[in-house]
């Protein structure tokens, strides 16, 4: 009888200890995992904010362009989501690679920058900026990529531009181009060229009466066609199709607002006898760019915009009191 009661006592204590111990252990492990995830989320969110601030000095300003390298200690993916509506926004989030998984932190909204990138991860990113000018300066295009590009037979001014970036992952004419790099070929609508290297991306220039036929045209990427004007060509090469279209519409919206601002500046300047006859053209330009920013397709929008932008630019340069 005594033995039975002792056995029962021992078993109850053991079972109780096992249950309580495992409950504490499970809770501790769960807490540690959640906490680790929280710390990663926090550091990724901070990283996204830091990246967005780091882009500030990267803006070209009145320089033609700027370039730099962004290095991370571990594989990191810079996610870039574009939202339309008004000036729109680029939502930047960072995700560090842990066991092949990328879980992004909180996104940082960037409303006054136009960031073009594609969704790939890497330890090293090339960042370069180019001015976006369409009659007047609208903003800087910030291009972010971890891919390598090989530009095959680009026109001389684009070749000079690419060389001026001094970036290792932008090469011209097979100059140490490795097999993993993306080949960007230049084709003319006037005469087709034959390339030995296969083209992943093709730039088609279609400005027939211009000094440089690649002033506007389109970039062919698989089945997608990305219409461009001026420096948007680089953005089209580097960026995803949806991101590109969204950012271009944001840029056109800002162009329209700037044209209205300059139109009002004409009035202010006239009130102190500083004359420039550009108001009707600027109002027309504001309308045209606003319509383009709201349209679903950009196909033919760039040609009339480009022509009017040229007219405005030359009229401004000839004016007694220039607006910009």
């Amino acid at each position, binding site marked *: 009888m005594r033995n039975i*009661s002792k056995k029962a*006592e021992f078993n*109850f*204590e053991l079972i*109780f*200890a096992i249950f*309580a111990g495992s409950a*504490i252990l499970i809770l*501790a492990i769960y*807490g540690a995992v959640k906490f680790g995830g929280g*710390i990663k989320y*926090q550091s990724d969110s*901070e990283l996204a*904010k*830091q990246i967005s*601030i780091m882009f*500030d*000095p990267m*803006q070209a*300003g*009145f320089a033609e362009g700027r370039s730099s390298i962004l290095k991370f200690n571990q594989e990191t993916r810079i996610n870039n989501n574009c939202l339309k509506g*008004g*000036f729109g926004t680029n939502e930047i989030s960072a995700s560090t690679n842990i066991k092949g998984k990328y879980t992004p932190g909180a996104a940082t909204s*960037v*409303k*006054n920058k136009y960031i073009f990138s594609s969704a790939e991860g890497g330890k090293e990113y090339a960042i370069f900026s180019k001015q976006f000018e369409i009659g*007047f*300066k*609208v*903003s*800087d295009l910030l291009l972010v990529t971890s891919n390598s590009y090989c530009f095959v037979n680009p026109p001389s001014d684009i070749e000079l531009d690419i060389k001026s970036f001094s970036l290792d992952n932008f090469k011209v004419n097979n100059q140490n181009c490795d097999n993993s790099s993306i080949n960007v070929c230049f084709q003319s609508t006037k005469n087709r060229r034959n390339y030995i290297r296969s083209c992943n991306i093709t730039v088609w220039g279609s400005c027939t009466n211009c000094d440089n036929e690649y002033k506007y045209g389109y970039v062919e990427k698989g089945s997608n066609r990305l219409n461009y004007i001026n420096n948007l060509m680089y953005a089209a090469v580097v960026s995803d199709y949806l991101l590109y279209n969204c950012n271009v519409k944001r840029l056109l919206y800002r162009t329209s*607002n*700037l044209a209205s*601002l300059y139109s*009002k*500046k004409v009035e*202010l*300047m006239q009130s*102190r*006898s*500083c*004359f420039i006859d550009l108001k009707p053209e600027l109002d027309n330009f504001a309308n045209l760019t606003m319509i383009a920013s709201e349209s679903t397709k950009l196909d033919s929008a760039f040609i009339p915009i480009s022509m009017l932008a040229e007219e405005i630019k030359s009229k*401004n*340069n000839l004016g*007694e*009191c*220039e*607006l*910009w």
Partner: protein
Amino acid sequence: MVKKAQYRIQQMVFMIVAVSFFFILVGVFFLGYQYRTTKSSFEDLQKEQAISFLNVIRNMPEFGYSSKDSYAKGICLDLDKIAIVSSEVNKFSELFPVASIELAIGFKPKRVPCPGNECNYYDVYSSGQEGLIKYDSFVCICKKVSENSYSYDKCELGKLIIGVKE
């Protein structure tokens, strides 16, 4: 025997409660530490952004003086643009990553708000938030003027004041 078993169970329960309480306390202290660290890094980033914006604003086409071939290009602010933006601030406010933008022209102690006679102060943008930390920087402010068919840049010195949430 039963009493002894009950006593031991009570002992274990007490220990479990004590251990849980200890972990909860450690957790609370750690969360507090994390909160303070996050808050201070958020404030640092806000400060960094405000200081960075003081430079960026001169290159924004909505503010920057961009008259061609002018020495003031890329350095100074455009007074006409500031007057227009501050009168239509709702249209442009989306573009500002800060809580307030003010511009004081000259260094007179008395601020006379613009537009108005002999005004010297533009409250360009205010998000309406309170408890802002303000950072300022000296800037040149220019406008194009024409006299006797000759146009030139008329510039003066001022102070650009940026506010960020504390």
